[in-house]
């Protein structure tokens, strides 16, 4: 699964990483594993959101290994 990060997560982790998981998982499960892989990056922040195919998805959304997931750091405009 390809994971693309935005905002400060892209700076602290990388713009893009491969999340090596052979089976489907939920967004929440992916977040826990990524948080373990990149401790202190801020992935446990509840304001971090996931996006699939241009839509923001909830933590219980199932992800297939062939999907691209975007992880959005807390947003701030204005």
């Amino acid at each position: 699964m390809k994971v693309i990060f935005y905002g400060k997560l892209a700076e602290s982790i990388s713009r893009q990483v491969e999340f090596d998981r052979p089976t489907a998982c939920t967004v929440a499960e992916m977040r826990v594993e990524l948080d373990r892989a990149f401790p202190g990056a801020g992935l446990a922040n509840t304001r971090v959101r996931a996006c699939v195919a241009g839509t923001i998805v909830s933590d219980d959304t199932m992800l297939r290994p062939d999907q691209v997931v975007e992880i959005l750091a807390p947003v701030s405009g204005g």
Partner: protein
Amino acid sequence: MTFSVRLEHDELDPERELRELISNSSGVGAVVSFLGIARPQGDRGMIEALVLEHHPVLTEPSMAAIAQEALKRFEVRHVHIAHRCGTIAPEKPIVFAGAAAEHRRAAFQAADYLMDRLKTDAIFWKREDGPAGPGWIEPTDADYAARERWDG
């Protein structure tokens, strides 16, 4: 009731934005606008540039959703948002948010609402670059509280 939003990659011209807002607001009695400007100084000292990262798909719809919600909540005729992305020099405009209404109170409230929502819900990531190094700016507790007061 109408709205217009624009993600601006180049310099934002406040006078042009105000003209656009007024031109879409015939017959109203009040126009209220807010202009956000990049500060030259921040909590970490001098700011050489403000960088606003955006999402290629989500950012503009997030601005439109905020404008549409303002139209639903307030007695306004037109709402206009123009928001910069990219690198912004100090003292240059970041955001223009305005509302036109028959009466002033609705226009003031809508403009206030637009900014509270843009601060916390518009899909941007804000970074200040300066001698102290890059620093990401996230909404403060006060920003979230300001946004939540509209939920009551």
